[in-house]
């Protein structure tokens, strides 16, 4: 029997050491079971962490040898198997004593601990992160109502008031787990801007696997390639030409399968030919279909514009012979077709400068002819393509994952396209908002060394907090003006700010909507609509709407008499009940109103915690449930006394209003009592524990925060 708080008494037993049963003694100490061999000088002391115990087996009473087998959870090492620890006892009472001690320790996480959850259960709970803790604190600081609720409900809360400590029945974590939605946003915000990048790896594996000879029935040599949505997206992002070909031809000219087959085949042949010209018309057609399309002059200019000013070499390239004449500006079209072909000022073939590469046309022509020079030109052309694709690959990697979900080839293509367009757009915005010069002027500090642009810090972009859109304070004294101003700001922020006409229209739209709605209510039968184009709503119409609303709500309230609860405020829902009361009764009801609604909220929360503990199968659950039930009992009594203090008429109203809550509480109480009968063993274990705990706490001169004996309420 576990009698002392720290460790049980020693129980003689034997354990297998190096294959032979060795006599020794075991005892439970804290959360561990320690076995020591009896004979001095014998090695093999065993320490079992009780938190690891998952199974607990005694052999049948009356067996030849009383033994106990503990199944231990696998250790942290990967692939570890569940472990077992077998002890043999000289007699059954010894075995049972140790078994009980172990059970008690595993059930409560050690006799000395007061925690409500066993070690095992606790370990499975997610650890509270620092960000979450900070978010909790921030929430409590900013929300006094929440802080008050925290004070009432949470044991040991720093917001607790003396008079309400009896209600504190839940733990910090339990309290917050009921309010996860409040702070997940705050916690998530910390890492919200963090984007998952994509890997640097160059080619998605699209070459496919070649089966080799293959069997002749299946068409001989087969190359099998697998495409996933991600791969498709990657292909579309890295090769805009393939994307364009897809969007143009699928499903109009070919099926998706056909498209991918052609693409993969073309890729395979391209790799296999290693620079040699394609063989056959179809191969050439495929190659042409998927070949990179040269950028237009406009696209190039747009690209040049979005590059930040201090690296923009294109800004004055070709203006003069800065780095050579205009002729050394290589354009997409190559040297011959482009402007470079026309010669110019400056020195064309300089030793220091590289001559512009031969154009693709020349390279292809030369490759056809063969010969050393032609090959060199073709190789040069191929190398340029490689370099270009490498650069493009890197920029695709920097773009990262698409925002839109990619579910099939088309969405992959569209996502890739959107990303590309988005890049151009954001780059342009950056250019517009932070010119090089402007940065500098902002950075000028008041004294000492002023940071230059190049010296200012570079913040990691995904660590920057996004600035929220400026909130508009709600002013209800003149709603029409408020909405008008909101509409105005919206239009102003939108791209076409200059479009004053549109703004005016939006402005009217709201007014129109309201007056139309009012008119529709008013003249339900005839279609005539009064044309009120003033921003303010027609007074008569507004009055009509208000009357209609209040009468409707009154009707609703009457229909569901007991529907109202203290959870809500004393608003129009209860108008009918209040209307029937005398003034003094109303005053009496009003005086206890806020306290009563607070109690109701507390009770609702406690009930939630109570039901979260059901079914009461373990000591920990019993412990929590009884804690909550006791707090509920206190509340119940308080509500009862409050009801009794009220004058007759008000008492009736109060009782009516409390009815749902009271019945819910009654339900909880009766469930609690039923469980006591239904799960006797668990309850007994709990009682034993709580008795020990109360004894402990008494010996320790009433430690704070110990669980109280359950109060029977029925």
């Amino acid at each position, binding site marked *: 029997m576990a009698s002392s708080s720290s460790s049980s008494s020693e129980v003689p037993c034997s354990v297998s050491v190096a294959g032979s049963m060795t006599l020794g003694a075991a005892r439970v100490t804290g959360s561990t079971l320690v076995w020591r061999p009896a004979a001095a000088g014998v090695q093999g002391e065993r320490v079992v962490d009780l938190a690891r115990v998952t199974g607990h087996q005694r052999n049948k009473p009356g067996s030849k040898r009383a033994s106990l087998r503990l199944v231990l959870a696998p250790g942290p090492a990967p692939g570890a198997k569940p472990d077992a620890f077998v002890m043999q006892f000289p007699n059954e009472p010894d075995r049972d004593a140790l078994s009980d001690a172990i059970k008690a320790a595993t059930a409560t996480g050690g006799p000395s601990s007061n925690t409500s959850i066993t070690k095992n259960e606790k370990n499975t709970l997610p650890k509270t992160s620092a960000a979450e803790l900070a978010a909790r604190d921030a929430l409590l600081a900013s929300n006094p109502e929440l802080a008050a609720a925290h004070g009432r409900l949470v044991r040991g809360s720093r917001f607790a008031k003396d008079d309400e400590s009896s209600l504190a029945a839940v733990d910090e974590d339990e309290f917050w787990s009921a309010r996860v939605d409040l702070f997940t946003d705050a916690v998530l915000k910390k890492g919200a801007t963090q984007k998952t990048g994509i890997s*640097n790896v*160059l080619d998605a594996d699209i070459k496919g696997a070649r089966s080799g000879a293959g069997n002749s029935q299946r068409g001989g040599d087969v190359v099998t390639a697998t495409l996933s949505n991600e791969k498709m997206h990657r292909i579309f992002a890295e090769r805009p030409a393939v994307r364009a070909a897809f969007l143009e031809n699928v499903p109009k000219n070919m099926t998706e399968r056909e498209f991918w087959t052609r693409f993969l085949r073309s890729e395979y042949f391209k790799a296999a030919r290693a620079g040699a010209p394609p063989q056959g018309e179809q191969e050439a057609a495929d190659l042409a279909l998927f070949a990179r399309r040269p950028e237009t*002059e*406009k696209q*190039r200019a747009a*690209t*040049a514009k*979005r*590059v*930040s*000013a*201090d*690296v923009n*070499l*294109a*800004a*004055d390239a*070709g*203006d*003069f*012979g*800065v*780095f050579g004449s*205009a*002729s050394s*500006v290589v354009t997409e079209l190559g040297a011959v077709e482009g402007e470079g072909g*026309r*010669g*110019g*000022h400056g*020195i*064309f*073939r300089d*030793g220091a400068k*590289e*001559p512009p590469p*031969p154009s693709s046309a020349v390279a292809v022509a*030369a490759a056809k002819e063969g010969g050393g*020079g032609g090959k*060199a030109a073709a190789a*040069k052309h*191929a*190398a*340029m393509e*490689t*370099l*270009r694709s*490498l*650069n493009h690959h*890197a920029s695709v990697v*920097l773009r990262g994952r698409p925002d839109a979900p990619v579910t099939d080839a088309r969405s992959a293509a569209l996502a890739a396209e959107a990303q590309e367009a988005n890049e151009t757009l954001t780059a342009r915005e950056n250019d517009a908002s932070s010119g*090089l*010069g402007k940065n*500098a*002027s902002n950075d*000028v500090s008041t004294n000492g*060394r*002023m940071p230059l642009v*190049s010296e200012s810090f*570079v913040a990691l972009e995904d660590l920057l907090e996004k600035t929220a859109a400026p909130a508009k304070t709600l002013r209800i004294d003149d709603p029409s003006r408020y909405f008008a101003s909101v509409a105005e700001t919206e239009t102003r922020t939108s791209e076409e700010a200059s479009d004053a006409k549109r703004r005016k229209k939006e402005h009217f739209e709201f007014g129109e909507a309201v007056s139309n709605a009012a008119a529709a209510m008013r003249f339900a039968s005839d279609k005539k609509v009064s044309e009120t184009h003033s921003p303010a709503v027609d007074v008569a119409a507004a009055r009509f709407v208000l009357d209609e609303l209040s009468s409707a709500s009154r009707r609703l309230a009457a229909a569901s008499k007991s529907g109202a609860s203290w959870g809500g405020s004393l608003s129009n829902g209860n108008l009918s009940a209040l209307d029937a009361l005398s003034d003094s009764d109303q005053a009496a009801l009003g005086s206890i109103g806020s306290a009563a609604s607070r109690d109701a909220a507390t009770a609702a929360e406690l009930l939630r915690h109570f039901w979260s503990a059901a079914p009461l199968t373990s000591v920990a659950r019993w412990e929590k449930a009884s804690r909550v039930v006791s707090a509920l009992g206190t509340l119940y009594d308080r509500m009862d006394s409050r009801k009794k203090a009220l004058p007759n008429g008000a008492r009736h109203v109060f009782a009516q209003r409390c009815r749902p809550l009271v019945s819910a509480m009654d339900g909880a109480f009766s469930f609690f009592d039923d469980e006591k009968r239904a799960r006797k063993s668990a309850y007994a274990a709990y009682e034993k524990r709580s008795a020990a705990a109360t004894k402990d706490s008494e010996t320790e001169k009433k430690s704070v925060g110990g669980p109280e004996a359950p109060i029977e309420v029925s």
Partner: protein
Amino acid sequence: MIFNLEGLTVYFPYEYVYPEQYKYMLELKHGLDAKGHGCLEMPTGTGKTITCLALITSYQLAHPECGKLIYCTRTVPEMEKVLAELRVLQAYREKHVGKASEIMALGLSSRKNMCIHPRVADEGSRESVDARCRRLTASWVREKHMDCVSREEETSTELCQFFEDYEKEGPDAVLPPGVYTLADLREFGRKKGWCPYFLARHMIGVANVVVYNYQYLLDPKVSSLVSRELEKECVVVFDEAHNIDNVCIEALSVNLRQQTLDAAGRNITSLSGKIERAKQTDARRLREEYARLVDGLAQQGVLRRGGGEDALQNPVIPDDILREAVPGNIRRAEHFVAFLRRFVEYLKTRMRATQVEQETPAAFLAHLQRSAAIDGKTLKFCYDRLTSLLKTLEIVDTEEYNAVSLVADFGTLVGTYQAGFSLILEPYDERYPNIPDPVFQLCCLDASLAVRPVFEKFQSVFITSGTLSPIELYPRLLSFNPVCISSLPMTLTRECLCPVVITRGADQQAVSTKFDMRDDPGVIQNYGRILIDLAATVPDGLVAFFVSYSYMEQIVSKWHETGVLQQVMQHKLVFIETQDVVETSLALDNYRRACNCGRGAVFLSVARGKVAEGIDFDRHYGRAVIMYGVPYQYTLSRVLRARLEYLRETFQIKEADFLVFDA
């Protein structure tokens, strides 16, 4: 900090000044006091720009008689950086001296970078922007438009509203003092509705500091347009001037290719067509032109009517332009066109040569006289005559006539200069000997020709850079007499550079970019290994320089095939400089983004290339640098050999000296 430098109060916007910066200022001040030229070297990263700006603007403040500072940079990004520094300086001065010290500083670039006209600015290349602009702003276009408007007719012509509004303001269109980058100018232009390009060109006259490209001073084609009216007292600074000799040479060189000549032929045909039409409809204009040419007024500014039609100017240094009447045989438009056609035909026959030919201008002219009966004197006027013709015919699409004006430039330069030039005809590129691609190159061999007017005109010209060694060579190459010449060392407070020379790869094989070794697969593999290992250990950005584009392309393709790049990509993204500037700029931008976001990146670039010369890889953008080989010039280049020969004969500069200097 504010300190006294030999009696001059210097406003320096930082708390500390490095010893070498102090010495640099001292040298500069001596140069300014002596009203002479200077040549100053100070390593990169020591704050050359701000030192120079701080001293000269302080000098301007103390000596109002000192003219404006003309700060020449090589690229627009550099210009933007200078203006950013200047803004810091300006803020500091304003704080300590007050409004009185306000400076007016602005950058100037081509229309392409300054235009705010919604449609014109969208044009891609400089030529097309210029052409569209001229079409909207040329004086005759505007006159025609005004005519139509005054007669209240529908006009088919269109004008640029920004230019019109600016013109309407006339001399009242001024910028308030301050520092204006190109973006600021555009912004200001948009706000006021004025054309920023013409506003900036107008404001050059009153600005204290002008930051623009070398070419606006060195290239006679644009300098006579933009920088003609600058006063003698100006202080000129050429920043990053270690390549200034090349810029000078480029400014006076012309190359012709087969396509140029073909296009020129077409231009001439279309010109003669236009002349025929003009004869029938408006013969008066042609007669007037003839009369002007007889009087020799063409070059004397009579033609300059204001407006935005200004095309490139005479390619010859202004002092060398003959102030004479155009010779009689090309005064009539149809004669001139026939003359041009003959010249182009002659050039075409020369282009058919299969051997490399090299000759002096004198020999060329003699041969020309013999076979095409064109004399050098007439050739000299080629350019002016063509400009006059284009203006008379009211042609705004000068872009279309690029080819023929290039031929005219060629003719004028050949006709004007006898010494210091060389003509080289290469029928094919040596790298691709089987592809016929003839180039007729008129190359200037003497860098001092283009820069001489600058040294003569302005009282103080400073040449400064991070590397000007051997510094004695510059005055000789550019033929000027510096009053101060100094090479300042860098003060390092700690060991922050760790150079390592790698001669052997991981497998103990020797590595080199020697021509006979560079293609060895072992060498390529070892170079790749170096890159992979460094990429694995070095944080953020890593830059690698190769000796040439072709070598880089070759080695990168090999790396791509053998999977070296895949391995590098496990650690960092790879960006590569290409010969396409737009793409290179985009790659650079992305490279910076990759470094900024912590992914890390490798930039493969070419030594002496655009990126190596123009872009800073500071801080995390360049934690390590790999140089694959030492980038000497390609010594077999005919242009280079001609130049070396010329240098040896004229300036007694040894070839080896020059090559080392260049590298």
